């Protein structure tokens, strides 16, 4: 296959960026999208040109490192798929493909297609955990957790923290990301004790980071590579209201 690419190039955080045209030649349908970019980069490097910077690590859809907007859609056209798992058989010979970074105020572009997502870490630091020190934990089977509850908690826990939900949202809201963690921990008996404190601190932190609010567009759910359902946001909202009530805020 021969493809025409329009790729976002930006020299640094403060530089202006623009879309630059490239041709990707002899692309096999079995390649992943990132392997296609590797091929483009190899050609650039052979000519001594600066390679296109993009993030990836596991290349199997679990680390959440890869983060490309392909033809306007975070992670590209396949549902439930990270861009590292997107295969070129999804495209046709002669296609034009635009590749851009996540765009959100809270995720500044560092270079080309690489963004800074440390705001997500700070949201977790604000309260996305159960406060237990090592040592002294009771036996794992001391508190039974009904299978149905454990399964729903696992559905929420599957979030890979890639940030596609933010990139897809017109408000750049982090609600799907936050609500997945809040749901997981609120559903499990171990996480109950701190549930109100948790939801309040995490939402406060998200506001401070410059993430927007949620207006129920549902774009986040549509692009989530782990298909985390938007029902998590409803659960978070309920938790939040109860927490405000409990805190007398």
């Amino acid at each position: 296959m021969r493809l025409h690419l329009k790729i976002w190039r930006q020299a640094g955080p403060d530089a202006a960026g623009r879309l630059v045209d490239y041709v990707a030649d002899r692309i096999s349908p079995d390649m992943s999208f990132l392997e296609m970019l590797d091929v483009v980069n190899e050609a650039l490097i052979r000519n001594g040109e600066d390679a296109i910077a993009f993030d990836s690590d596991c290349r199997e859809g679990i680390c959440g490192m890869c983060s490309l907007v392909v033809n306007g859609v975070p992670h590209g056209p396949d549902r439930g798929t990270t861009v590292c798992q997107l295969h070129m058989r999804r495209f046709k010979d002669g296609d034009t493909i635009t590749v851009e970074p996540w765009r959100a105020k809270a995720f500044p572009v560092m270079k080309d297609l690489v963004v800074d997502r440390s705001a997500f870490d700070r949201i977790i630091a604000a309260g996305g955990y159960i406060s237990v020190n090592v040592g002294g934990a009771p036996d794992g089977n001391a508190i039974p957790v009904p299978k149905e509850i454990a399964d729903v908690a696992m559905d929420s826990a599957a979030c890979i923290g890639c940030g596609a939900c933010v990139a897809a949202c017109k408000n750049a809201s982090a609600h799907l990301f936050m609500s997945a963690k809040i749901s997981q921990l609120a559903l499990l008996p171990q996480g109950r004790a701190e549930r109100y404190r948790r939801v309040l601190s995490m939402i406060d932190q998200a506001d401070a980071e410059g993430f927007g609010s949620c207006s129920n567009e549902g774009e986040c759910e549509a692009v989530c590579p782990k298909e985390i359902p938007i029902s998590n946001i409803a659960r978070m909202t309920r938790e939040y209201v109860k927490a405000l009530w409990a805190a007398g805020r």
Partner: protein
Amino acid sequence: MTLDGQVPSGSIGDKWDRHKFEMKLVNPANKRKFTVIVVGTGLAGASAAASLGELGYQVLNFCIQDSPRRAHSIAAQGGINAAKNYQNDGDSIYRLFYDTVKGGDYRSREANVYRLAQLSVNIIDQCVAQGVPFAREYGGLLDNRSFGGAQVSRTFYARGQTGQQLLLGAYQSLMRQVHQRTVRLFTRREMLDLVLVDGKTRGIVCRNLMTGAIERHAADAVILATGGYGTLYYLSTNAVNSNVTASWRAHKRGALFANPCFTQIHPTCIPVTGEHQSKLTLMSESLRNDGRVWVPKKQGDKRPPEQIPEDERDYYLERKYPSFGNLVPRDVASRNAKQVCDDGRGVGDSGLAVYLDFRDAIQRLGVGTIEEKYGNLFHMYKKITDEDAYRVPMRIYPAIHYTMGGLWVDYNLMSNVPGLHVLGEANFSDHGANRLGASALMQGLADGYFVIPYTIGHYLAGAMLPKVTMDHDAFKESSDRVQRHINRLLSVKGARGVREIHRELGRIMWDHVGMSRSEQSLRRALSEIPKLRDEFWHNVSVPGSPDNLNQSLEYAGRVADYLEFAELLTLDALERRESCGGHFREESQTPDGEALRDDANYTYVAAWEFTGVGSAPIVHKEPLNFEEVHPTQRSYK
């Protein structure tokens, strides 16, 4: 140099408890006076940094990725072992210990393995308390599955994302400490040198991958938890940024590298499809619980699988190993896959694959159950191969997956360089010549949550550690060395990309130092590696500048280290003229083609000392004593 493993005296069951009592303590008020650097945020690094922060130490924690949550541990699928005996099927600490020593083909240190088995039970408790959503039975209790090399069900799991869930548990504990300011996080940093002052480890030099700045960080002790070196082979199941750089640079500062030739090849990966491929994807070993491995009996049989009648199929693992069947350990399963393919009975276009068939399990249990257990794996398989494994058998082939070798450590997980501790896959300690499935997660967390919090205190309380600042000559020397290396990489300005050279190195290693090794193949690799290293330093192209994000430069540094390390690994493989675990020497096999150990001559750990690039390293041997589990020829028949 004499290698002392510092194994405590006493009976195997008492060693750790006694040692915990005998170790020196740092009193609570003094802990915050000590700074500890932890490099790595995988299971080992994140659990260590979080635990040390909880104890009150000042922790500096580094990783390459943009967030600690993205460490390679996140990709582990299948599960984590623990001797809970919740299934009442005869499991015990002793049995897990026994299975691990045997599975490691009697090349690990008994005392370490016993401690690992003891701590396994605490890990599960800790993770449950953190909110790790392990799989549960309808009654609400924890569920288990079986893994290779064991006849009991002791593997805990969270769907096919066990590593992810355990890592997120550790990451959350870590972020809690970051919030409490006991841990300072340094993401997108690559450690490029270890700094020694008066023979003790006192810090690191790293590159800020965003700005290119060379940074100095001082501490009272350094912990490396930087993972394994599987990406030496270019194609592997490891994340693409995995590397040997931190370990190798520490090795160059004096840390011994132990058993580098012990590499693990995982039997169930999606086969290679072409030159473009950048990594191989693992299909969890748990699939072997229900999938049956087979190839056609006839050579060159190109019929589609469903047209091959039952009596023309060879379920070779079930045939050869009736008591373990499809659940034989990884090395055995991998070697057998290679044998049937070498025999001309491999399947798929390349002939380098075998079937993993779920037909019978689906008939027996229904599609629903199989989907429940392995849905995400089938989904992943479909995405990559465009095939539906509910209808046609999966095609699988072995790939490099894990490295048992690593920096040498004693019972306290300290290397021979005072103050340098090594945890997780980066050390050599617990898995001998072959790691059992679901035991790496267990080891990483045992090291980080339950071992290092005690042993680092013992070191800090006993060592004389005068204050060291970052303008000390040792830091300056080290940053100059790092800077020179970077300038050198950028100044070659040749014609070949790093990836191309890495691919070539991977091919040499896979062909000659892979699943099957011989005197001849190893000597051939030893002649080719230095040539390729030369080619790299004369003809590599590393564009861009050193003072901002430059992924070509990062990659070049890692491959440059691999080009040195490859030689050590190969030499270790050459010198170990026996077959054991993942290391198969063609000259050392039984009449029916099974690996043949040579206990009389090789019951030791080979720990190598660096003497210079291209100059012969010196081997130091730590003899292994087996007081509990008596080495026998491993048999899974």
